[in-house]
């Protein structure tokens, strides 16, 4: 049996590892567009200069040899011939018995006038992006970041650590609007502003202006403001990297379409992670890589945990965590408390936690996402919501592992 995986991110690498655990003798090949294995979530540490390329890896040095995986870097897959079970790429092809599409996603560049074709414009998705940003930023005096989500602010943070002070534009009224509420977001915004950053929120970029050489020279906002710009970073979201599947017969919607077993419409072909448009987070991509690999190796497995509305933020020494709803909706009850060093908010609905935001102090707080994910009613726990913990549902199995007793 020969397993081929396209992509070496969280889903692809995990799948390869699980396949080796499941199939002692299978041939396992990874085709990757990347030059090396690296964690995209750490690219801003490369921009800042805090980490070198090899320090962005999330696998051990001997990983491929140890798991007998053939890793093929710098392979740009151009298509899949499902009839002859063959992956096509520039300069060659690779046959497969089972195939996993784990190509991840690519930066989305919105249809802004003048954006397409302008130089010194980058996403922050690939190592090549991080390299280009770092090099250009050394000379740049007017850096603009479009997008105040996690990726945009990661980029801004990396640049701040380089001694730069980028300007950040977002159409949302607050930064990190997908991760935090306005109150928690304001804490980070103040820190970024102290570091010299400027924010244009509730603003859209209407035009990207270039100079005679084709380099970005300014961006214009819907307020009429014009910001000088010699390096533009676009971080307004990603799209599944599935362009190469056109005409392959593999059904795609927003991402590759898969069933509960992560199988596509073509027998023997699976998809996991951002390519399937399902994950949105590192832990989800890992779990999907596992599920896909189990099914590829013949053990029918269903994805159990699909909860991905959870994340962490860590800037300027202030950690934060959120899960579920960020703002109370109709019928929700919101509890908040705050002191000098922390802000905490829990949203419940009929006694069931549906959202949490913790900022400043996130110690031993992982149980919150479990309560929210599993909709565990805490009404009957006779203590303050702030004192609820795993202790209130404490269970142990015969092997000494914890289990929730609810």
């Amino acid at each position: 049996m020969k397993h081929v995986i396209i992509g070496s991110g969280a889903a692809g690498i995990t799948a390869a590892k699980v396949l080796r655990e499941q199939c002692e003798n299978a041939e396992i090949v990874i085709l990757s567009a990347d030059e090396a294995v690296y964690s995209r979530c750490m690219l801003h540490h490369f921009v800042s200069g805090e980490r070198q390329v090899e320090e962005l890896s999330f696998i051990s040095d001997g990983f491929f040899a140890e798991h007998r995986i053939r890793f093929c870097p710098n392979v740009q897959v151009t298509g899949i011939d499902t009839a002859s079970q063959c992956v096509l790429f520039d300069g060659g092809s690779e046959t497969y018995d089972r195939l996993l599409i784990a190509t991840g996603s690519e930066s989305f560049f919105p249809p802004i006038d003048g954006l397409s074709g302008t130089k010194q414009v980058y996403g922050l998705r690939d190592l090549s992006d991080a390299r280009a940003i770092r090099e250009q930023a050394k000379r740049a005096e007017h850096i603009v970041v479009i997008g105040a989500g996690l990726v945009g602010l990661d980029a801004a943070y990396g640049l701040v650590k380089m001694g730069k002070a980028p300007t950040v534009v977002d159409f949302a009224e607050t930064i990190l609007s997908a991760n935090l509420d306005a109150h928690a977001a304001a804490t980070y915004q103040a820190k970024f502003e102290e570091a010299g950053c400027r924010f244009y929120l509730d603003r859209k970029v209407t035009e990207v202006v270039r100079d005679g050489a084709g380099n970005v020279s300014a961006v214009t906002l819907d307020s009429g403001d014009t910001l000088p710009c010699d390096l533009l970073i676009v971080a307004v979201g990603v799209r599944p990297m599935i362009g190469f599947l056109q005409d392959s017969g593999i059904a795609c919607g927003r991402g590759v379409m898969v069933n509960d077993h992560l199988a596509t419409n073509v027998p023997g072909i699976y998809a996991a992670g951002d390519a399937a448009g399902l994950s949105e987070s590192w832990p989800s991509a890992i779990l999907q890589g596992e599920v896909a690999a189990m099914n590829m190796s013949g053990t029918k497995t269903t994805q159990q945990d699909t909860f991905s509305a959870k994340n962490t933020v860590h800037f300027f020494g202030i950690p934060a965590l959120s899960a579920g709803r960020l703002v109370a909706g109709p019928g929700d009850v919101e509890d908040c408390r705050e002191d000098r060093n922390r802000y905490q908010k829990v949203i419940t609905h009929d006694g069931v936690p549906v959202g949490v935001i913790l900022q400043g102090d996130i110690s031993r707080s992982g149980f919150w996402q479990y309560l929210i994910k599993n909709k565990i009613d805490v009404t009957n726990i006779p203590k303050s919501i702030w004192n609820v913990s795993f202790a209130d549902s404490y269970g142990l199995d015969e092997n000494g592992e914890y289990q929730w007793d609810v």
Partner: protein
Amino acid sequence: MRRILIEADKCKGCKNCSVACMKAHVPEGTVFSLSDPQFESRNTILLDSEEKCRPLFCRHCDKPACVNSCMSGALVKNPDGHVLYDRDKCAQCFMCVMNCPFGVLKPDRATGTYVVKCDFCALHGGEPSCVKNCPTEAIYVKEVE
């Protein structure tokens, strides 16, 4: 693998385990202050709503959610089953803190730059100091499947 098993009903909440854990993670020969935030215990004892002691110790889970959330390779489940943490590799994203379903993990209190995580007393011959110092045998090491 070897795991620290817990008989919660035997726990009296004396926290000898926590002091032993702190002591095990300071340099040999150091007299440490219990109130100095740079010395922290990896374990703790929680109370449930009936005031019963509920020891919270890293389980080194068979399917560790912390490892699944680690995007730097700092958290690894070793061949011997223990989940170990490499501070130098850690990118301080604290996704592991968020993802541990039992709320065992935490950023360090003094600097907030690393994760406080049980290492099964790797520097002490792999014999957990907490277990050696539990007077009620509420925790003990056992080989499990």
